[in-house]
């Protein structure tokens, strides 16, 4: 199917009244959770996941994806006005966004971040349209060993490209793989690690693991924390928002560079918007003629990272939709949603389900336009939201979590699972173990094992097969390179020195 035909299919799918409605719900919920600090896109998507069981899979995906990229728009609002990132990925935006608000330039900052988010997203969506079908076609040739190698690369890249301890991240990815083993072995029907609990026969529920690690853990960590000081903005007038001609000039290049960095990082399997916005910020600071202005309200300091995190979110769909390898932990949950709806993400998706693929892409355009409206003319609404104190929010969120996991299986057992992972998540946070790799490992573990076994069967038990196929050998080589970087602290130190003092999990 060629591009124009695809776009036509997409328009027919995305412009039905129900698709438009779910897209609107998705991006509104996304902005909502994005604006509120203490609840992120991942928690929101896991919460909404059980609600989509009754929907048409395409509508469900359109809505869940909308939450994901919508949250990237909303996240910057709290960063600018409250000095607290609304989502972890908007942490960098605090550095220059909050000083701008203190100088009375909050409307300008909000306008610029919304526009940059839109530009970043648009560039990345064009790339998804161009590259995903190409990569999918190429990937049709993939054998089991190639799949094994590319999934392994995704897991290794996700856990080594962090600023925290690489060993802790690697340990967590392996822990995630271990969690993915729980349940019935598909090949032999053997129960593994179920400890006699009948409820675990199908493994841990994805919703329960994600809600625990990201929802409950987040709540425990946030209770009793001092709230930021909300910058008073009063009525936001449109004329205050518009940048001057020289300000437009100032942000043009940073936006484009941020979009490019974000698209690249996002398209890599396993690495997400957090690292993308960090790298975009570091790049601008190095290129700037006035690096001393950064951290004091530099426009470049908000435009590049905001373009980058939105671009990376959209670009994360390239490996997900073409290879079935999630570009980041949130997309991994989206992939889990596809699997729950009986759709196998992979190179066949675009050919087998063209209306889903193209419908989703066109809905990205619709959603991003809606977000522009939600975040510029209607910004006052979201600013009001920020004045709701957290101590009134979290009891409600806890109830939503309980009902959400209950509804997945109509079983109280999953509430206990959520609680267990919530406590574990809080302990991990305190000891510097990142939670996103756990989720990636958990979702990819069964696929990794399946391809390993198939590769072994086909190659008659020869481990060298992973290094003989050129595709697999390339991916294996890259994985080894990433692992080697862990043992070369010099390289990491150089990378770290270029980045500002902000760690990815510092939320």
């Amino acid at each position, binding site marked *: 199917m060629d591009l124009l035909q695809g776009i036509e299919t997409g328009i027919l799918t995305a412009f039905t009244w129900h698709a438009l409605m779910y897209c609107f719900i998705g991006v509104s919920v996304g902005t909502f959770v994005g604006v509120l600090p203490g609840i992120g896109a991942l928690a929101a998507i896991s919460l909404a996941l059980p*609600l989509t069981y*009754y929907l048409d899979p395409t509508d469900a995906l359109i809505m869940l994806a909308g939450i994901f990229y919508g949250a990237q728009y909303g996240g910057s609002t709290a960063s600018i006005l409250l000095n607290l990132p609304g989502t972890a990925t908007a942490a960098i935006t605090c550095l220059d966004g909050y000083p701008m608000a203190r100088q009375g330039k909050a409307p300008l900052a909000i306008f610029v971040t919304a526009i940059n988010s839109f530009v970043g997203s648009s560039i990345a969506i064009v790339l998804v349209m161009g590259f995903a079908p190409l990569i999918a076609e190429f990937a049709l040739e993939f054998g089991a060993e190639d799949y094994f190698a590319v999934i392994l690369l995704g897991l290794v890249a996700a856990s080594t490209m962090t600023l925290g*301890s690489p*060993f*802790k991240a*690697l*340990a967590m990815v*392996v*822990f995630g*793989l*271990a969690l993915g*083993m729980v349940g019935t*072995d598909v*090949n*032999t029907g*053997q129960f*593994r*690690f179920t400890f006699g609990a009948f409820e675990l026969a199908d493994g841990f529920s994805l919703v329960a693991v994600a809600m625990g690690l990201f929802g*409950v853990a987040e*709540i*425990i*960590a946030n*209770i*009793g924390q001092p709230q930021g000081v909300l910058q008073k903005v009063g009525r936001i007038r449109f004329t205050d928002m518009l940048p001057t001609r020289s300000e437009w000039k100032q942000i043009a290049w940073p936006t484009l560079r941020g979009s490019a960095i974000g698209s690249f990082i996002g398209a890599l399997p396993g690495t997400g918007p957090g690292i993308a916005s960090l790298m975009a910020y570091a790049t601008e600071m190095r290129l700037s003629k006035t690096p001393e202005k950064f951290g004091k309200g530099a426009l470049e300091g908000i435009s590049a990272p905001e373009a980058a995190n939105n671009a990376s979110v959209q670009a994360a769909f390239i490996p997900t939709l073409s290879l079935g390898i999630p570009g980041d932990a949130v997309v991994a949950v989206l992939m889990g949603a596809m699997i729950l709806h009986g759709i196998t993400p992979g190179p066949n998706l675009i050919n087998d389900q063209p209306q889903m693929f193209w419908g989703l892409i066109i809905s990205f355009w619709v959603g991003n336009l809606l977000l522009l409206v939600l975040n510029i003319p209607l910004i006052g609404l979201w600013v009001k939201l920020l004045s709701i*104190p957290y*101590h*009134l929010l*979290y*009891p*409600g969120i*806890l*109830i939503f*979590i*309980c*009902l959400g996991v*209950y*509804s997945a299986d*109509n079983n*109280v057992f999953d*509430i*206990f699972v*959520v*609680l267990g992972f*919530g*406590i574990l998540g*809080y302990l991990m946070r*305190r*000891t*510097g*173990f990142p939670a996103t790799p756990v989720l990636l490992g958990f979702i990819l*573990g069964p696929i990794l*094992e399946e391809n*390993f*076994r198939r590769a*072994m*069967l086909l190659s*008659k*038990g*020869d*481990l060298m097969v992973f290094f003989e196929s050129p595709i697999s050998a390339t991916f294996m080589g890259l994985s080894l390179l990433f692992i080697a970087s862990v043992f070369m602290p010099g390289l990491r130190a150089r990378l770290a020195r270029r980045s500002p003092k902000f760690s990815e999990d510092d939320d």
Partner: protein
Amino acid sequence: MIKSSLLSYLPGAVVVLGGLLFALGAASYPLGTLLRPGPGFFPMVIGVALALMGLGVLAETRRSRAAAGAADEPFAWRAVLFTVASVLVFAFSVERIGYVPAALLLIAIAGLAERRSDWPALLLVALFMAVFGTLVFIWGLGLPLKAVGAS
């Protein structure tokens, strides 16, 4: 001093132990051969890898111990205790007394997690959650729960 430095090794040690236990569990399933890996094969590899990563974490702790020493935030006992209690009570009671009373219990207990709670406002939250949850989850999505009473 000695106690705290030993404590800093705990996370790594837990990872190593977890990996070994997982490998031990994997050993109780048929391992199979490389030609035809059994259900225990992959978990065994994972268990060993996890233990190795734990050793890496331990080595890292040893190296960075001198540099560390940043003041940790105190463990949020109060938040953990009341959050856990509220969710547990909800889980045990929701099928017996119905969604609305269970939700009220959850909000009341979770409200204690914060040192100073705004009870009148929490009552409004409870009212909202009772109505909204009943409408969306019980009527809308048809969860097999009753608003009030055993299901």
